[in-house]
């Protein structure tokens, strides 16, 4: 009977071989494919089983942090919490089991989750020592006092506020309203999260949109800064150059006219200096300047300030647009920031910042540093990056003088800050007939004692009241003032 026994042994060997093969097939050859299956919740469990690094502001204040769940029935080990809630929501974004990530949570996910390449050696060490891997902590450039001031000043009105440091591009405040509480999406209670999500996406005011970087607005008169910059850069104009500022500007190719807000001419004999034209926000003068300079020149100037460039803070920023082929009436409208010009509030703040920074545009940045979670060693600290030079130092000086005039005696007097030099520009961007215009204000401020403290701000308010009262100077300048004050005090 030994011969069939040996054959039976061979059958047994074959059976085991099949098991070795099938096990290898699953655990090794097809493991990647199985791990990526849409119905496989293990990746989520693994992700939520790792301690995600916190998002910090200021001196270690957490605006997003993971806490270990006590409830043994909860399948996920760590819950993401947002102690400051909606104040920072547009920046932090959310980290949801069901709805994924947004904001900084998405933009630097690999660092927070601990899967970034920079953290490879830490992971290796954790593997060998058996420690639970922990994500790195990310400190934002946001200044908690400036952020809070911006939030308080906007006071729940629909709009956005951005403050940046001109010399570095560091974003000091970024507020968007209406917004949401990230905790309601981060909850592990699937039903509650779904209810909150449905309510948020059904809301017509788009609370999930970070208006500071994702929304594109017509810039209104704040664009006159770029038109003025292009004029000064052309060499044909100085702040004193007289330009035409009639009551109405006849637009080429149509019967339409462009008029000033007050319905009067901007100066005697329909003439006005470039400085005064900006100070009182003369539409006809800048409409004419737009026509004189041409779409190509304006477009090039806008690009030099950062338009039509992919920016990453590392939050992705929508690209601001200038209609480079605008002509005729549209070109005149473009010169005063109407028509098809579109900007993000961050881009507007960058214009003021570049002017305050002697003409050099800095890349806007939200991440101050990345620290290893256990040792607090700094892993990465982004250095200030120049986007490029937008205007010459002389032009920047001239623009600063013009912007100071706006705040001292022009449309932006409500933005004056005690003990500080402030330059600004108002904007009132018309939407359709009967719709409340967007109220803009952008400015920079410098401590009078000259201790290098500087800030540049952009404010947009979408629904600031009646059709008539939505002047940027009236609504938005006071918001900018409070933000600048907070930044200079800090």
């Amino acid at each position, binding site marked *: 009977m030994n011969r069939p026994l040996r054959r039976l042994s061979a059958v*047994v060997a074959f059976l085991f071989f099949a098991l070795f093969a099938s*096990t290898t097939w*699953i655990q090794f050859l097809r493991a990647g494919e199985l791990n990526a299956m849409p119905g496989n919740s293990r990746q989520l469990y693994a992700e939520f089983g790792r301690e995600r690094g916190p998002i910090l502001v200021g001196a270690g204040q957490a605006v997003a942090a993971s806490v270990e769940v006590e409830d043994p029935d909860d399948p996920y080990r760590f819950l993401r919490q947002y102690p400051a809630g909606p104040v920072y929501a547009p920046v932090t974004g959310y980290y949801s089991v069901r709805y994924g990530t947004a904001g900084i949570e998405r933009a630097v996910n690999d660092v927070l989750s601990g899967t970034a390449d920079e953290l490879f050696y830490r992971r290796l060490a954790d593997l060998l020592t058996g420690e639970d891997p922990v994500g790195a902590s990310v400190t934002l450039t946001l200044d908690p006092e400036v952020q809070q001031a911006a939030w308080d000043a906007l006071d729940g009105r629909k709009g956005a506020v951005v403050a940046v440091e001109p010399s570095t591009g560091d974003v000091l405040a970024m507020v968007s309203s209406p917004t949401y509480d990230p905790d309601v999406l981060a909850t592990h209670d699937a039903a509650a999260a779904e209810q909150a999500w449905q309510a948020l996406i059904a809301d017509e005011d788009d609370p999930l949109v970070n208006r500071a970087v994702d929304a594109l607005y017509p810039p209104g008169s704040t664009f006159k800064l770029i038109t003025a910059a292009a004029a000064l850069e052309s060499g044909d104009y100085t702040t004193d150059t007289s330009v035409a500022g009639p009551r109405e500007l006849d637009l080429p190719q149509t019967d339409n006219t462009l008029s000033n807000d007050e319905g009067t001419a901007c100066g005697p004999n329909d003439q006005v200096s470039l400085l005064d034209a900006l100070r009182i926000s003369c539409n006809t003068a800048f409409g004419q300047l737009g026509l004189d300079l041409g779409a190509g020149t304006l477009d090039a100037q806008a690009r030099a300030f950062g338009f039509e460039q992919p920016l990453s803070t590392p939050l992705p920023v929508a690209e601001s647009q200038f209609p480079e082929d605008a002509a005729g009436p549209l070109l005149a409208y473009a010169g005063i920031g109407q028509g098809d010009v579109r900007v993000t509030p961050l881009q507007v703040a960058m214009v003021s910042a570049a002017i305050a920074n002697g003409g050099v545009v800095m890349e806007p940045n939200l991440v101050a540093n990345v620290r290893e979670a256990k040792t607090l060693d700094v892993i990465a600290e982004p250095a200030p990056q120049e986007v490029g030079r937008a205007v010459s130092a002389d032009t920047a000086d001239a623009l600063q003088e013009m912007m100071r005039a706006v705040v001292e005696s022009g449309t932006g007097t409500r933005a004056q800050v005690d003990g500080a030099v402030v330059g600004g520009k108002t904007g009132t961007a018309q939407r359709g007939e009967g719709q409340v215009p967007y109220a803009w204000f952008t400015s920079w401020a410098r401590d009078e004692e000259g201790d290098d403290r500087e800030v540049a701000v952009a404010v947009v308010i979408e629904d600031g009241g009646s059709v008539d009262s939505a002047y940027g100077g009236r609504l938005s300048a006071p918001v900018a003032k409070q933000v600048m004050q907070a930044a200079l005090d800090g």
Partner: protein
Amino acid sequence: MATVLPVYPTTRRNVELVLVVAAVLISCGAWAVVGLTEDGSLPGGLFAHGGGLGALAVVLHLLLRWRAPHADPVLLPVATLLNGMGLVMLHRLDLSEGTSAASRQFIWSALGIAAAGAVVVVLRDHRVLRRYTFTAMVTGLVLLALPLLPVLGKEINGARIWVGIGPLSFQPGEIAKIVLAVFFAGYLVVHRDALSLTGPKVLFLRLPRARDLGPILLAWAVSVGVLVLQRDLGTSLLFFGLFVAVLYVATERVSWIVIGLGLFVAGAVFAATTMSHVRSRVDIWLHPFDADNADSAYQLLQGLYGMASGGLLGTGLDRGRPDIVPFANSDFIYASFGEELGLAGLFALLLLYAVLVERGMRTAIGVRDGFGKLLAAGLAFSVALQVFVVVGGVTRVIPLTGLTTPFLAAGGSSLVSNWIVVALLLRVSDLARRPAAEVRNGPEPGDTGVTQAVRIP
């Protein structure tokens, strides 16, 4: 010219002791890792369970020294390690699921090892079992039929293979496996000549006479009965496979395998087309990723995902989520090991099974009596087939059925019966490895050193 040389038989009992200690230490180490990962301290049950398992295994080892000194030295350590690792995984899953399966399993382990010890001590010679061939048949059929009785039988998770008395549940099929192996061996060793030498030859096959077909048809009918009445695919497959294998070994005729496979395929096709639960198992096996099967294939898929997440080296004990898989500590304990110990750990476990089966087959080859050969081969093959059916089900080699993973899975009946299988293999191997002179004269206790065996080269 033949040279006569004295051979001093080596019993290898010391090797066995070293291996048993190693098996216990590995299990204790794994148990400690679970505790250290869970809360940074050595778990409370480490001494009780690890030490207890070690003490039981050493007692069985001492019984072998006393009553079966020539038994195979590898079987006991392998069974101890598998049992120990099973306890570790149950303990680890207890922590996640808030159950207490490990403590219960430990009690069953003690009972199983005690049963094995009893077999070794009481059963001095396996050939005694041959006298009980037909008692074994009747017992086996009764055990198989027990779950069908109205009061005793219990249906759990759709399979009616349990007997319950009060809070205790037992799967009589597990014991039936052993009794039927005894019956098959006893019956076939008597009838092998009739079954193998007569009958017409067709092509290259010598077919059996029609009247000799009786036993195989009966075995087939019983396994189909199990399948239909108890809805237990795994046990049905196990019995029929066991019978065909032993039949083939007894008769050396390939025709029996062909007939057996033919009957099996016919039965399988019939079941797959007419019985809804079998059809659904096959459907899940073939199309686990279909959206239509999302609910029914959930367990299989979660098992696959768990194994995939383990990768080559696994997440480490207590670092994965094997508790996501339904029945992670019984039907899917293989996937639980795969997730936390990785491909490397599963290979180690499969190799342990392979070694266990290989030692059993070697015992069958080595033992001189036909009954012993058939018994050892049947028992060893039943372990191999059981591992194949359950692991193959989890890894999609075959449709998923409800068999337990020997020694690892939670379940007292299975653990006790597998320890008895090991004890029987130990008993047979003692005779297989005993020097010829001793076999003739019978063992003389305390006199092994001077017994002389002769070997003629």
